[in-house]
């Protein structure tokens, strides 16, 4: 499958701080998860792809469009759905008004069609019953769903979601996963998250970023395989500084070399991610 997003040598600096360091990656249709510690450059990458941040160097092509070209940037915006990390809301708007306003800005100019689309996206995020409610009356999780609704307007070819599951309760998270996986069937979804279980459940591909670079690109299974033969279960904690934590059944899960008397365990995406980042210090969970 041809990649819909190609990034080559992307660089972004804030003063002396290099946030994206000649980043090169590509991904195509389906759901791609973006993992990485705080400060890894995830949000900067997403903002660059969403055309809200101009990079200092490198090339970015999205859906065949060159983002260095202003006209093509505008074309991309017509085909893009973007949920930023901290979306803004107008407390005195109703949900319908807010989404309709964004719909107009997204160039949905036919009133009847626009209203139909607004109702559709509100239904997608299960907020249609609250269409006439003022935004100020929504809970944090509802606001997150509302922000997702505006991103879904116009059935975008590329959906960029920056930590979309923050504030969602478990039931909403499951609904969200179902929605995103359905969207990923026909379009490109890039999802930044700290939740490795979301990646495991949703993503066909995963990119792990650290220090402004992509340190891993592959499937969740491949990421889990990074920890192959390096995950152990033991009754006692290891005596050295290997990464371990106490699990709910009172035993210890250790990554790396096996502690004495440990049995091997099946690696997860989280195990692979943690080993990839090479966390040196153990912790009690």
């Amino acid at each position, binding site marked *: 499958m041809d990649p819909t997003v190609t990034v080559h040598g992307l660089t972004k600096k804030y003063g002396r701080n290099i946030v994206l360091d000649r980043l090169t990656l590509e991904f195509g249709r389906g759901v791609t998860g973006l993992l990485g510690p705080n400060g890894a450059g995830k949000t900067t990458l997403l903002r660059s792809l969403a055309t809200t941040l101009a990079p200092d160097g490198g090339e970015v092509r999205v859906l065949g469009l060159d983002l260095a070209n202003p006209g093509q940037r505008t074309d991309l*915006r017509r085909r893009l759905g973007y949920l*930023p990390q901290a979306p*803004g809301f*107008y407390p005195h708007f109703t949900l319908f008004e807010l989404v309709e306003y*964004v719909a*107009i*800005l997204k*160039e*949905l100019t036919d009133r009847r069609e*626009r209203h139909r689309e607004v109702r559709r996206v509100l239904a997608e995020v299960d907020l249609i019953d609250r269409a006439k409610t003022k935004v100020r009356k929504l809970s944090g999780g509802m606001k997150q769903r509302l922000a997702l609704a505006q991103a879904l307007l116009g059935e975008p070819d590329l959906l960029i979601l920056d930590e979309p599951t923050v504030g969602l309760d478990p039931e909403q998270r499951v609904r969200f996963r179902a929605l995103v996986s359905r969207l990923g069937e026909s379009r490109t979804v890039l999802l930044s998250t700290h939740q490795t279980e979301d990646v495991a459940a949703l993503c066909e591909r995963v990119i792990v970023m650290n220090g402004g670079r992509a340190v891993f690109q592959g499937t969740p299974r491949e990421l889990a395989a990074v920890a192959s033969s390096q995950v152990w279960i033991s009754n006692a904690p290891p005596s050295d500084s290997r990464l371990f934590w106490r699990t709910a059944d009172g035993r210890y899960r250790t990554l790396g070399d096996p502690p004495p008397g440990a049995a091997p365990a099946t690696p997860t995406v989280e195990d692979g991610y943690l080993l990839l980042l090479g966390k040196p210090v153990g912790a009690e969970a």
Partner: protein
Amino acid sequence: MIFRSLFLFEVHRLLRSPILWGAAALCLGLRLMATWPWLPDMSVDPTSTSGAMLLLAVAMMTTTNLATSRDTRHGIPEMFKALPSRAAERTKAATLAALVVGSGIALPVMLCYLLARLAMGPVAGVFDPFEALGGVLAVPFAAALGAMLGRWTPWLVAVPVTAFLIGAFTWLNSQQSGYGSWFLPVVLFHGPDWPQRPSVLHVVYLLAAIALFAALALLRHGARPVRLIAVLTAAAVTVPAGAAATAAAPGEEINRRFETTLQGNPAAMLGDMDPKIRQRYFGPDAQRCEKHDAITYCAFHDYATWISSWVSAVNPVAQALPPAERDRLPVVRQLTDSWFNANGDEEQSIRTFMMWGRAGAEDDYRAVLASQIIRSVLGLRPPRTGCDVRGQSRALVALWLLGQGIAPAAPEDREIQIASSAFMPEQSQLGMIRYGAAELGYARKLLAMPDARQRIWAHWDTLLKPETTVEQALSLLGLRPEFTAEPVKGQPCS
């Protein structure tokens, strides 16, 4: 491409704004309440209503500011940058919507007010449509200003601060020369007999200022040639129009000259007067006179509709006078609002003014006219500090005459507004004349007697002598002593 949709969205939102409709209702309600006690004067009403429009203007400035600054608030810029529409289109749509809605609300407010005033009695004065238009334009002026502030200042407090500064500027100006107030969207007040305001120029100034603010708001999105040309063109009209509009002396300046150099000097006042005003109010054809029941009434041409109100105040008293006295009554003459001192004292006329009451307040004005006739006929000339007519039979006649038109009441110190900034002090309905409960009581008895007129006319000369006492008058008038006389307080009326 999206401009039309955005414009309609903004119009829809503004039309549902409770702030705007609340301000419009308040503006109309307060203005009607303030002018309720007076007959409509179209020389004053549109200008004063323009001042009241400031309330709606502030509401409009606030809502427009919120609309145009909407996409700068927390989290929004990041969301909107990823959308294909440009910020300039949002500014254009929000500003135009505010201008249309602002004008669309202000116009009916002004029309409703003026129509309501037209229904409040005989209309006087000269209607200047540009004054009314100026009041309407104050609202889009504020909308454009709000849009500009919304784009150039990131703080929501900018609107209240600007509103406060404009308010303070207005107040300071009205305390000083008033020249600066003409730079404002509205003129708070303009006297009916002040030199004609440059209302057309003011309208041009307002329109140009609206265009200037709107263009400046758009300039925030980049100095494109079209925007720069729009700003420069609008500024090129705004500045000279504003300067020309402020070139003539405003009313506050006239008031200041009154207080410093002209007061008490009628000749100087006439000399200082604008030639057009002198011709209009003191020229040979300044007044139109009509005779009703042998009494002549003279009104300025635009106020002739009020003559019927004056007739209804004077006639009952005049009809109650003996025929010989009636024939000697002086002319009832209207005096100007600001220049009434310029007439001097050479003519002993009954004076009426450029205000007349209604809805219950007309009794005050009827009393002012009636009491002048009564004082003239009875020879009562109270000094500035007033006099006391207790114990004199003239008091009974005076109150009986007054009672022909309005119900006499107990004395009370108060001031009747006779001009835009002039008040006539009164100690009773007879002017600066005090009387007691006994005189009032006997007068009420007389008013209830069917043959009071014959008795009063029969003893007219005796009753009018200052030395004839109330006790002496009672037997002449067929009244029994039943009220206790009160001692005279202060100077007795001579």
